[in-house]
């Protein structure tokens, strides 16, 4: 049951479908005092049409950065150093900048963590909605206005027609996130990148927003890349998961595989520390992962998690991590626990 991660297995018939996006070997660096700090290393993930891929990890692990690379908006002075991003099995988004520019807002769009700051404070929400409709969907002013009302109604904003004249500061956080979603889906994109879309909202609003995303997905077959540090959100939304730590994907698989039978000690640690997770159900105290993530400018040569890992052996600090797998398989970058993960999980409890 565990050999599959060591020997690249032939692709399953079930995952024959060409993924909408497939990221491979993505590496992003920032200039640092001692050369280049790699904030994202050799990251690979993919998302099939209509599914939700959850990307989990703590702050600064490179989740958001990887997704920004997908849109070509890696913040200065960061730079994509390698890898490829295949769109629909063909275009490499990292190398075809013109195509990417035309795709932004039309085929790929993004919503952000802080709805208080993701709308331009000096223009009404109607202006901002019609702007994207006119510029990116090519609608005339009058049609854009009608479509804007439809979109606001679609995302559940009451009395949409009058709301067009509202300015962002007149709306609540949840409303603003709805408007942001309306702007993001205005041109009928195929891929929606949601960067911690509910982190800044309270729990009831969070549920409504996530519900809205699920509805939209069912209606339009939208593919969603959902970044979150909240395993609860991911468990609720995602079909598959990629867990990131210190700039690498350390484990991928379906939601059930990863959350129920985690193979990487970091994933297991995250689950044990999540309120409402298996630990809480078992009535035991929440466990924290000791220590803190390493600075990206001084990563150890071996596994970046080794210093915090209770299963670490001597070889862990020397042998670099690798995530070997066929497409769509449950895989972990940890050779130690992976080889014997049942025992590891027993020890963990």
């Amino acid at each position, binding site marked *: 049951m565990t050999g599959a991660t060591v020997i690249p297995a032939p692709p399953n018939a079930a995952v024959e479908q060409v993924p909408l996006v497939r990221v491979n070997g993505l590496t992003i660096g920032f200039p640092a005092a001692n050369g280049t700090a790699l904030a994202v290393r050799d990251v690979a993930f993919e998302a099939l049409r209509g599914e939700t891929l959850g990307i989990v990890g703590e702050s600064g692990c490179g989740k958001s950065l990887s997704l920004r690379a997908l849109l070509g*908006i890696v913040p200065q002075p960061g730079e994509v150093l390698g890898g490829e991003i295949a769109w629909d099995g063909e275009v490499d988004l990292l190398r075809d900048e013109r195509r990417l520019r035309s795709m932004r*807002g039309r085929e790929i769009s993004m919503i952000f963590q802080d709805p208080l*700051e993701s709308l331009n404070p000096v223009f009404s929400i109607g202006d901002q909605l019609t702007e994207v409709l006119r*510029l*990116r969907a090519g609608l005339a002013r009058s049609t854009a206005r009608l479509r804007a009302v439809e979109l606001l109604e679609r995302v559940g904003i009451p009395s949409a027609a009058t709301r067009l004249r509202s300015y962002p*500061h007149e709306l609540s956080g949840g409303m603003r996130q709805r408007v942001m979603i309306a702007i993001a889906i205005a041109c009928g994109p195929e891929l929606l990148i949601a960067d911690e879309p509910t982190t800044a909202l309270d729990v009831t609003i969070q549920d409504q927003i996530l519900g809205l995303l699920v509805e939209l997905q069912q209606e339009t077959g939208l593919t969603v890349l959902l970044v979150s540090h909240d395993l609860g959100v991911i468990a609720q939304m995602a079909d598959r998961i990629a867990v990131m730590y210190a700039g690498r994907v350390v484990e991928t698989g379906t939601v059930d595989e990863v959350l129920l039978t985690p193979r990487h000690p970091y994933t297991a640690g995250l689950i044990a520390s999540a309120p409402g997770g298996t630990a809480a159900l078992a009535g035991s105290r929440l466990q924290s992962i000791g220590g803190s993530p390493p600075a990206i400018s001084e990563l150890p040569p071996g596994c970046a998690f080794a210093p915090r890992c209770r299963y670490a052996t001597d070889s862990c600090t020397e042998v670099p991590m690798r995530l070997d797998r066929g497409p769509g398989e449950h895989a972990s970058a940890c050779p130690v626990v992976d080889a014997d993960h049942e025992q590891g999980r027993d020890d963990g409890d």
Partner: protein
Amino acid sequence: MSVVASDQDQLDAALDRRLARVGRRSARWRRFTLEAGIALIALVIVASIVGEFVYPNPNAQDLAQALLPPSLAHPFGTDNLGRDVLARTLAGTWIDLGVALGATYLALVLGVVCGTVAGYFRGWPERIIMRFVEVVLALPFMVLVIAIVAIMGPGITGVFVGLTIGGWGFYARLARAEMLVLNEKSFVHAAQTLGYSHWRVMWRHAIPNLIRPSLVYSMSDIVLNITWVASLSYLGLGVQPPTPEWGSIIADGQSYLLNAWWISTLPGLVVVIVGIGFSLVGDGLADRLRARRAVVR
């Protein structure tokens, strides 16, 4: 216990009332500041428009009427050539205000665009633009302007170019600093992810959000520039005689200061009134923008 609580309530209520009163008072004063400033400037401008009709030729000489003190016929008196000082002062408004406003806002536009580009793109555009800004700001303003006027030759064009070149650097700094803040805001990222051009992101989404400090600063800049236009003309570097201009009128009158004080003093007073007017507008505007900002935040 309950007595203490109700005392406390009364105290709180009194404090609330007092704070509300203070707030109302300061709001009233704030509005007054802006409106008083506008009124002062409007007074001078309206007077100048009327002056265009009342005094078709501000340079008309009448040597028989030379050096007359202020009277109903000549409210500001006459100068040594018998020219009406009020007529010349009013005619000078256009030059002084025009050059000062033009230079200030050309500098603002130049500076804001350069600063926004620098802050938005970072990298080499930023390095080049900000190096120029540093050069401009490193030179003393007065020396720079006089040097430019000297190169271009005395005249109104030299003053205009000098004030613009001397003034844009500060706006560039303000705009760049604000742009660096905006770079972190999601709405700028959102505009990028929606596929808008860089130009559109800067023009529609960044500049409207970063221009306020520059607008507030421009109000005090106008005051300085008005005095600069007048000063340079006073020194003979700006407007050349006989064109009426505040600085040159004051300069003309200074040799008669002891026996005809009005020639220099009354136009000087007009400069002061306009200066106070713009300062009040700047203050009032700053207060209002701050208040609005507080609401937005």
